[in-house]
């Protein structure tokens, strides 16, 4: 009883400390991030690094202000449009293909397996010069790179997911008179849904990264172009600005994708 009273007494202070430590834990990563920015800011100005090669954080921000927020946003928007269009087309092809291959044509899927894995190892950037030769400069090459990089993770996770479905679940549905359509919509699709979301997420991340590369190979707009263009005209701060933008957008994109995944996938696999 006495112990309880004591607990209640110190509860207020302890409670506050607990809340503080919880906040502290949550923003732990932020401390390091802020430290990084501070270092970035002071290192060039106190002479630890060459300010020409590594301009300070504020210089980079000033460069952004010089270009204008609107222009920066336009570059970002153009890049994102490329990512999403490429990614959506890629998903629209890879998903059904994965279903058809592993669901309806398992033998063909097995036969194609080595070829698919071989092709997936072809670096996406190789496609750019190929498209440059075939269709000339322009958007095609960029889209080809994005399509290619999103395609394989989505296809492979779909096929893996299909392979991992517990056969008994399908048997259970069949024993209750389920036809092919019902088996697909009520068993196969929900069963591999977590895989699909994971595959789509990694496809999206991949296509974003590859988009930046593709744009820097040859585009007249977008974040990748911005970096490459800055390099050509020797605007060092602008290179850093572009890199910073890519990092921020990529981070947000991934964050959003993870959150979407968390809300969509509500059940867990039974640990057996």
């Amino acid at each position, binding site marked *: 009883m006495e112990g309880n009273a004591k607990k209640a007494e110190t509860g207020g202070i302890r409670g506050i400390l607990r809340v503080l430590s919880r906040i502290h834990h949550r923003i732990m990563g932020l401390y390091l991030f802020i430290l990084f920015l501070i270092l970035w800011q002071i290192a060039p100005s106190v002479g630890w690094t060459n300010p020409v090669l590594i301009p300070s954080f504020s210089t980079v921000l000033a460069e952004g202000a010089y270009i204008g927020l609107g222009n920066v946003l336009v570059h970002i928007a153009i890049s994102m449009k490329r990512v999403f269009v490429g990614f959506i087309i890629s998903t629209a092809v890879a998903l059904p293909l994965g279903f058809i291959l592993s669901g309806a044509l398992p033998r063909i899927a097995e036969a194609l397996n080595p070829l698919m894995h071989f092709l997936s190892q072809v670096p996406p950037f190789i496609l750019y010069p190929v498209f440059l030769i075939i269709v000339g400069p322009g958007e095609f090459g960029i889209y080809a790179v994005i399509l290619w990089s999103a395609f394989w993770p989505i296809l492979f996770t779909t096929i893996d997911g299909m392979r991992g479905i*517990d056969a008994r679940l399908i048997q259970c*549905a069949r024993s*209750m008179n389920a036809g092919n359509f019902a088996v697909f919509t009520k068993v196969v699709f929900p069963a591999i849904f977590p895989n699909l979301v994971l595959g789509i997420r990694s496809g999206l991340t991949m296509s974003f990264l590859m988009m930046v590369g593709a744009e820097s190979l040859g585009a007249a707009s977008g974040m990748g172009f911005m970096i490459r263009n800055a390099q050509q005209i020797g605007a060092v701060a602008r290179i850093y600005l572009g890199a910073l933008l890519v990092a921020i957008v990529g981070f947000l994109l991934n964050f959003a994708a993870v959150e979407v995944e968390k809300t969509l996938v509500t059940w867990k696999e039974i640990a057996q």
Partner: protein
Amino acid sequence: MSGADRIAAGGVTAHENNRPPKIEIHGIERIFLKKNETNGAQESFVALKDVNLKVESGEFVTVVGPSGCGKSTLLFLLSGLASPSRGEILINGDKVTGPALNCGIVLQGYALFPWRSVRKNIEFGLELKSVPKKERKEISDYYINLVDLTGFENHYPYQLSGGMQQRVAIARVLAYDPDVLLMDEPFAAVDAQTRETMQDELLNIWEKTQKTIVLVTHNIEEAIGLADRVAVMSRNPGTIRDVVPVNLPRPRRIGGVRNTPDFQILSHHIWELLQDKGSRGGSGAQSAAVPRVDIGEHIRDDAVI
């Protein structure tokens, strides 16, 4: 129709003699193509051979046998999920050609849909039958109550104990409301105490609904305690060795009959039937062929799957 009405309407007394048997199994053979483990060649493996059995409407038949003797294979054939290589199965006098509305199976292991809540799992078959939503809820309510899962309607399988998952699986097939209930080792993976409760629950449900039940087990006590008749299987090739009638009183609770002399005699008899196969096949080298079937409580948990 409420769940209670459905049960009343489905009620059929156990011993109506002027009907054809509910289930007739005629000369079933099931052959699998297997890869030889040493040379990789395809060879045929006779999983079931010359299986014959008749089950009356409302009867509770258990099938006991060592693991690998073809019990699951037999239930698959009964459920229409697979077809026999030879012979035929009739249910209500009609040849089984595929899954049918009058036959439901509880597969070995729970086989619950992990992305569906308890209620949604139980309503699965009703969705397939396009039962309207309101009626689905009434029916699932009834069975959730029946298997004592009230309060867990919205839980997912991963949040339930093994015994609870098994009850969901049973409720799911009951809600589908087939006249013939096939159950593949439904209590193998639950602890001894829960198992006995669930066995009694199943007896209770069976007495209320008068469904025809074929239940597979490798536990002799369970086989006798539940059944009107026990089909004893042997392996290599899998076949029904004998069908032993169980004349213990009904309504029955396992705990009430387990220690009676009649039960012990039956138990010993079935045990001998299972042993006998071992000595008949081998010439002295008996041990390797003796089927591993447990008496009483000693179910091996690893025997599942």
